[in-house]
């Protein structure tokens, strides 16, 4: 009797476990299918967008009327941007697929810039037309490769989940059809990026970081770097400093210093350029106590620090208080002209007013002040270009980097429209509205 009961009990247990296991398996499969479908959608969407892109570029080539060219180029820009976003959803970040992404970005930037230009006044140049033709060819190649992959995926029921697994485990991914296909696309684009240059108006967005142009001079040694840190941070000499030289991937070599103060048991970090020994940034991560000084006092302390280290003509541009830290932005003011690209950031602790952060990255990577020609239009003429609804509150001259990556002399206006404040830059040579920024308002807390 007992045996029968026991057997019944156990078999019930087995059946129960089997059912539970089956359910788990089902659920897992459902989730896998769901994830797989997301990948499939992104992939098929991508191939579709590339088809569209190719056709659309082709259409623009045949167009002659400027009226229809602008909208067509805008369409190219939109499709390229959507394709770019599709790529971002595929599990390719472990696969070198940079060049294709970059290619899509470049098409986008190129078509955008040509589309927003007044093509009546400034029609497509010969080079730009040639660029369009090459883009047309290249997109055809990509389209072909992708269609091939798509065909194989559909024919063999290939799964993206397998790609992800293969990539993650490094399990001979070279056997994978999808990976092979994408590698072919990548190689194709790579040859293009290397051989073809975009038209001269297109200063490459890929080379945004220009390196530390300003950091010139003789190469310093590790010991010299220590000495620079000591004088820059006003160290007492009892700190333990370790110096590491950057790897060869850095555009400009630099030293990274870790400064340990045994007294306070805090660490300060600092990078110094090898050439000339310029401090790039400093972070002091000490805990900061209750606020004792005001943001205003902190700004004065920050300014004093810069003056002490021979940054001349600096002016406070922005100050913001985050709890008990002041974050300050200084810009260079050259004879009444603000040079916005040459910005220096600082953090000042509001408990005792010491500097806890410094960053001259923008300052060091912007070209040394260039002499701009005198403005061709007057302040009043520039003001007339503004939206009449904007109430101007402040005005001055300033240099900014526009969206073609050129430094231009502008008239800067700060004005209000409704409850918002805007910063508007009018080119001082030709009166073009280079940039309009809505300045940040405080955000309410949601807690």
């Amino acid at each position, binding site marked *: 009797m007992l045996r029968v009961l026991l057997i019944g009990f156990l078999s019930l247990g087995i059946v129960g476990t089997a059912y539970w296991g089956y359910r788990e398996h089902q659920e897992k499969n459902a989730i896998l299918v769901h994830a797989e479908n997301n990948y499939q959608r992104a992939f098929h969407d991508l191939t579709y967008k590339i088809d569209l892109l190719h056709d659309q570029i082709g259409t623009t080539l045949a167009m002659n009327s400027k009226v229809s060219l602008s909208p067509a180029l805008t369409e190219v820009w939109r499709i390229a941007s959507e394709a770019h976003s599709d790529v971002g959803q595929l599990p390719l970040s472990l696969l070198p697929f940079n060049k294709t992404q970059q290619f899509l970005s470049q098409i986008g930037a190129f078509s955008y810039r040509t589309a927003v230009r007044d093509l009546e006044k400034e029609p497509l140049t010969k080079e730009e037309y040639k660029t369009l033709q090459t883009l047309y060819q290249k997109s055809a190649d990509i389209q072909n490769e992708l269609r091939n992959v798509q065909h194989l995926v559909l024919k063999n029921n290939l799964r993206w989940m397998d790609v992800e697994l293969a990539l993650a485990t490094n399990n001979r991914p070279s056997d994978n059809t999808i990976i092979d296909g994408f590698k072919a696309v990548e190689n194709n684009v790579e040859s293009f990026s290397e051989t073809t240059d975009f038209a001269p108006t297109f200063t490459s967005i890929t080379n*945004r970081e220009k390196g530390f142009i300003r950091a010139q001079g003789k190469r310093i040694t590790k010991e010299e770097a220590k000495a620079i840190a000591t004088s820059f941070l006003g160290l007492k000499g009892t700190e333990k400093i370790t110096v590491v030289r950057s*790897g060869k991937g850095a555009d400009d070599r630099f030293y990274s210093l870790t400064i340990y103060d045994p007294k306070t048991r805090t660490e300060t970090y600092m990078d110094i350029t090898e050439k000339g020994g310029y401090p790039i940034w400093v972070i002091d991560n000490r805990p900061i106590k209750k606020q004792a000084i005001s943001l205003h006092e902190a700004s004065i302390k920050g300014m004093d620090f810069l003056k002490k280290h021979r940054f001349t003509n600096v002016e406070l541009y922005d100050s913001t208080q985050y709890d008990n830290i002041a974050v300050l932005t200084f810009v260079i003011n050259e004879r009444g002209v603000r040079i916005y690209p040459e910005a220096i950031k600082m953090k000042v602790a509001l408990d005792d007013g010491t500097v806890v952060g410094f*960053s001259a990255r923008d300052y060091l990577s912007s070209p040394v002040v260039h002499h701009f020609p005198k403005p061709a239009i007057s302040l009043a003429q520039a003001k007339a270009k503004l939206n009449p609804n904007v109430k101007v509150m402040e005005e001055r001259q300033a240099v900014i980097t526009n969206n073609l990556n050129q430094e231009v002399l502008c008239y800067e206006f700060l004005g209000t429209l409704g409850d918002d404040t805007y910063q508007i830059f009018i080119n001082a040579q030709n009166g073009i509205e280079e940039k309009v920024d809505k300045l940040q308002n405080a955000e309410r807390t949601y807690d």
Partner: protein
Amino acid sequence: MRWRMIVCLVIFLWTYEWSTKEVHAFSSQVIQRGAVGDDVIELQARLQYIGFYNGKIDGVFGWGTYWAVRNFQYKFGLPVDGLVGESTKAKLVKVSKYYESFVKEQIRNGNSFTHYGGKPLSEQVKREGNRNQKAASSGRATATNIPKGFSQNDIQLMANAVYGEARGEPYIGQVAVAAVILNRLEHPSFPDSIAGVIFQPGAFTAVADGQIWLTPNETAKKAVLDAINGWDPSGGAIYYFNPNTATNGWIWSRPQIKRIGKHIFSK
């Protein structure tokens, strides 16, 4: 003896009265744009009382407050610099009133309210329920400074990623991871939104294994804020990896910039 007591009493009363009066006036700091705190609340309330400031009284000295201060200074013949120093404060206290307990109570209760003069205060409150109560009951302002182009939620999402990826790393290692996310945002080879970069399949292990949903600590948030504010300890890196656990061979081929803690940062 009696005479001396009277003197003492007079002095006591005088200092007593002086101190209660001062409780409701500004502290001695010069207030400038970007500041937060009680002085800013008082400044906004007083400017609103005399009709110079129409925005929200939220304790953050933003652009709206700045223009209000400048208009006030202009109207009252003070030097127009947008800095609230001694003379501006004195003038402001003279021409306006500040009902501190009213203002603080509304902030505490998360009500939307105004503080105009010449109108009963009770008519200037709109109850909004308890939505904002938690933040406000700690006595803090109802708004906060945020770097341009980002929201508090963006920062939170990045802090999640940084905490999941690099919580055991030194502080600059965490700032560097946040900086990599931002560098990718700018880079043509990567998606161009914070969520796009973070959730790109396979991009971050913390996303893949769910560690991104751990609750980040203050350090991670601070690191994100530093990175957004312009500090980049990674030296412009767009990749990083842990050499002990990296399974992907390709990552080694990227030009390496530097090592921070366990991570190697590369281009």
